[in-house]
């Protein structure tokens, strides 16, 4: 899969290149926008329905917690679904990149889930988990180390 020289950027089989930080950040921003647009539309619908119903304070709090849980589930389902299906989220498709496993195939759902958790973990220490992308020969971040994945170019 990888041909590597000392301090050289590795090249995966097929001649495509590993993708760097800014391209991945743009793809992630597109995905975040899509996720939020859907979430806002659903939240507005739910808020409109709830506004005409008389709901006690305790139930309202429970509904808020449920909404937060649904939002997190939606985010995880979005990434895990796309990464394990085609290896490309809509943002990745726009930027023509693909998340692949060590064999070059799309990740399996458990590894896609691990990578999703890795995304969050990498962001917790002031995004320090993403810094290895700048120095690793395969441009891998913490999430890639955890899920044994890489991000490569994918011409459409």
């Amino acid at each position, binding site marked *: 899969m990888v041909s590597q*020289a000392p*301090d*050289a*950027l590795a*090249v995966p089989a097929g001649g495509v*290149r590993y*993708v*760097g*930080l*800014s*391209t991945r950040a*743009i793809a992630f921003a597109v995905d975040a926008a899509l996720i939020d647009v859907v979430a806002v539309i659903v939240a507005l619908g739910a808020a409109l329905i709830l506004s005409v119903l008389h709901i006690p304070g305790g139930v309202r709090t429970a509904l808020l917690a449920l909404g937060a849980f649904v939002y997190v589930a939606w985010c995880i389902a979005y990434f895990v679904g796309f990464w394990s299906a085609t290896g490309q989220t809509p943002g990745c498709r*726009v*930027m*023509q990149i693909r998340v692949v496993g060590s064999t070059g195939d799309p990740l399996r759902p458990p590894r896609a889930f691990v990578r999703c958790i890795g995304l969050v973990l990498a962001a917790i220490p002031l995004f320090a988990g993403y*810094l290895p992308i*700048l*120095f690793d020969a395969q*441009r891998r971040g913490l999430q890639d180390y955890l899920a044994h994945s890489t991000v490569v*170019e994918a*011409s459409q």
Partner: protein
Amino acid sequence: MIAWNYTFAVPPSGPLTRLARRAAASAARPVGEAMSGAFHTSLMLERRALGRLLENGEMDSLLADSLGSPEFELALRRVGDSPTTRRLIKAFFETGIFDEVITQLLESPALWRLVDEVAASPAVRAAVMHQSRGFADLIAEQVRSRSRNADDRIEDAARRLTFRPQRVRPGGGPVANVDLS
């Protein structure tokens, strides 16, 4: 030399004159009828000839030959290039007739119906969509190209900051553009 007798300006009204008039009228009638018949016959013949010409398709080929001939094209070009034509066109626009026509056209509801019909047609919609998609693809391509460059630049900057040697990249220099083909 003819010597005109102006005394006929006031016609004489004797019995002889009346007789002469009647005789002249009787003589002229068959001539008039003959002429009228000849006219009708010629008209009928002309129509029949024209009908035959159109039925045979000779007129079509004649028209096609005339319009497709280089002489016609040359004549048309000459007319178009002549200063008189240009002057006439200029005069036409200066009269304000064209402005009036445009104003009337814009006020006509039929025009806007036509515009709506054209805008709603699937062919026009497909063309607009195709063009929009092409524009979006162009922008996306630009963003991709620039982001690939930015990847390399950020990486180089990070390596400089950490005193690491610049990375050797396959297929070009440190900030070589990426071939997506």
